């Protein structure tokens, strides 16, 4: 792991570089995948919002688990089983520390953010949402924080309402204020938009929701890898996120929820580990968090998540955020300079925007943009990014999206800019 403890002297970090600013170019050595050529060009990976790349420490932690102490957890009274359990529960503690959760037993390991949100929808939702009850979402939600609530209100005959967005992708809180008169049971929204990059004012929204008597669920999938997340400071009730977007293995993710809520919630998935006692026709449940972890967990992936959390902590999430903010600033300048007709969406205020640049070139479909960029080893995403209603709202069929991570550099953006020039050359012929 490579961390430059001193602020960089050069201009690229801007005047007020935070202590311990990232040296992303040096960090790249930690990510073996980046050391390859794709179609004769170095890989320029700009799809971290979809899934991030993994550093050696994470990859190696997973293989070390399989090579040295692979065993089921919470069961074996033997050396490698005890070690596996200690590392698995240790990972839970690391993840709790990473988001400043007061109690590691409030962390439930899941496959991803999607499963974490479904867990709440099935367990809390089916026990608490009745006919006519409202749930307030926003127009910018990822399908993962939309479709589970659609299923729930369909089953319960409840009501979904949506906080609209402004044209530059900010939540219209004055409308939210009005929606709160419906006395919703739950307000669920994304911390950072995966499509527009918008960083929502979580604390403010949570306070408004709580004042109206609602619980608050936040989809943190795009926040934990990119901005400092402090659960205590956010003041929310449920917080869901994916590991694989924060440098951890695929198959890792977590739900944080307040202890009282988790304790009161009925189980979701049922089977081994989540029980205390089983009889043929009735069972009692285990303590939290295990009550929500039925069956053999993805032990290696969870251990990798713990290592990724420590890796990010060592980098410093303030430094990560500052780094990505600079990348966005650089991209917002460099891309229009290269292709002046580019349309970039989302908030233009750098304080309100994470490391996500959605864009279109006029009359060129994003699929074609992505496909041609691939010729130059550049990986961007094209499509609706699992936010179809947001695309409908913005009247866009699809967008291309470049997104950043700790290992992204201005050189990546330069490559993208050059690639887009090529796209235009080919299409404008």
């Amino acid at each position, binding site marked *: 792991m490579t961390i430059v403890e001193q602020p960089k002297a050069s201009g690229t970090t801007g005047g007020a570089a935070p202590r311990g600013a990232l040296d992303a170019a040096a960090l790249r050595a930690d990510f073996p995948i980046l050391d390859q050529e794709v*179609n*004769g060009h170095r890989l320029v990976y700009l799809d971290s919002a979809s899934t991030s790349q993994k550093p050696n420490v994470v990859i190696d932690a997973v293989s070390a688990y399989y090579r040295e102490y692979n065993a089921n957890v919470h069961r074996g009274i033997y050396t490698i089983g005890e070690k596996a359990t200690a590392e698995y529960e240790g990972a839970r503690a690391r993840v709790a520390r990473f988001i400043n959760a007061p109690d590691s037993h409030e962390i439930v390991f899941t496959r991803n953010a999607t499963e974490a949100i479904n867990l709440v929808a099935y367990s809390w939702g089916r026990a608490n949402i009745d006919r006519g009850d409202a749930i307030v979402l926003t127009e910018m939600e990822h399908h993962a924080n939309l479709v589970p609530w659609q299923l729930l209100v369909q089953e319960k005959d409840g009501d979904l309402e949506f906080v609209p967005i402004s044209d530059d992708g900010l939540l219209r809180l004055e409308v939210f204020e009005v929606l709160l008169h419906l006395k919703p049971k739950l307000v669920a929204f994304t911390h950072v938009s995966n499509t527009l990059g918008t960083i929502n004012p979580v604390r403010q929204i949570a306070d408004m929701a709580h004042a109206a008597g609602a619980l608050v669920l936040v989809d943190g999938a795009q926040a934990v890898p990119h901005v400092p997340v402090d659960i205590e400071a956010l003041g929310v009730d449920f917080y869901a996120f994916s590991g694989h977007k924060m440098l951890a293995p695929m198959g890792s993710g977590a739900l944080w929820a307040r202890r009282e809520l988790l304790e009161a919630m009925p189980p979701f998935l049922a089977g081994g580990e989540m029980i205390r006692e089983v009889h043929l026709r009735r069972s009692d449940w285990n303590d939290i968090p295990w009550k929500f972890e039925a069956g053999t967990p993805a032990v290696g992936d969870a251990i990798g998540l713990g290592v990724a959390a420590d890796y990010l902590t060592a980098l410093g999430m303030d430094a990560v955020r500052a780094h990505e903010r600079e990348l966005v600033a650089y991209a917002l300048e460099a891309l229009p300079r290269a292709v002046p007709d580019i349309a970039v969406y989302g908030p233009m205020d750098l304080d309100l925007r994470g490391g996500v640049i959605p864009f279109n070139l006029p009359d060129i*479909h*994003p*699929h*074609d943009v992505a*496909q*041609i960029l*691939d*010729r130059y080893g550049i990986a961007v995403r*094209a*499509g*609706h990014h699992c936010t*179809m209603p947001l*695309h409908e709202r913005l009247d*866009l*069929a*699809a967008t291309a999206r470049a997104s950043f991570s700790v290992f992204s550099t201005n050189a990546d953006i330069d490559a993208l800019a050059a690639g887009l020039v090529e796209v235009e050359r*080919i*299409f404008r*012929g």
Partner: protein
Amino acid sequence: MDDLYRDYILEHYRRPHNFGVLDDATTSHEGSNPLCGDRITMQLGIRDGKVAEVAFTGRGCAISQASASLLTDEVKGMSVEAAAAYRADELLDLLGIDISPARLKCAMLSLETLDAALADLDASASPAAVAAEEPA
């Protein structure tokens, strides 16, 4: 390295053949590929058991647009049966480029929409009636 963007593909994309709306379509269908936001509406004018007229509208990537342009050229004048029997591999040959699995849906959207439009036809007319319409 892909060579998807050959000149004739781009040419079909920029100036697609049979792009437009029929006044008196016998059957029409809107197909979509939600993953990329592509949408195509395919309209057919059937006369004497033949695809007498064909037109499409919609938005999509170069591959899906070029594919619709080429496909509509191809099926114009075919018997309904022949059009319905038109195969994916024939369309791929027609496109003449290597399509990766990720883009196959783009390339196939026009054919799927055509098939759906022809299936609508079957559903509205009884098989016997369709047969009777056809020349022997």
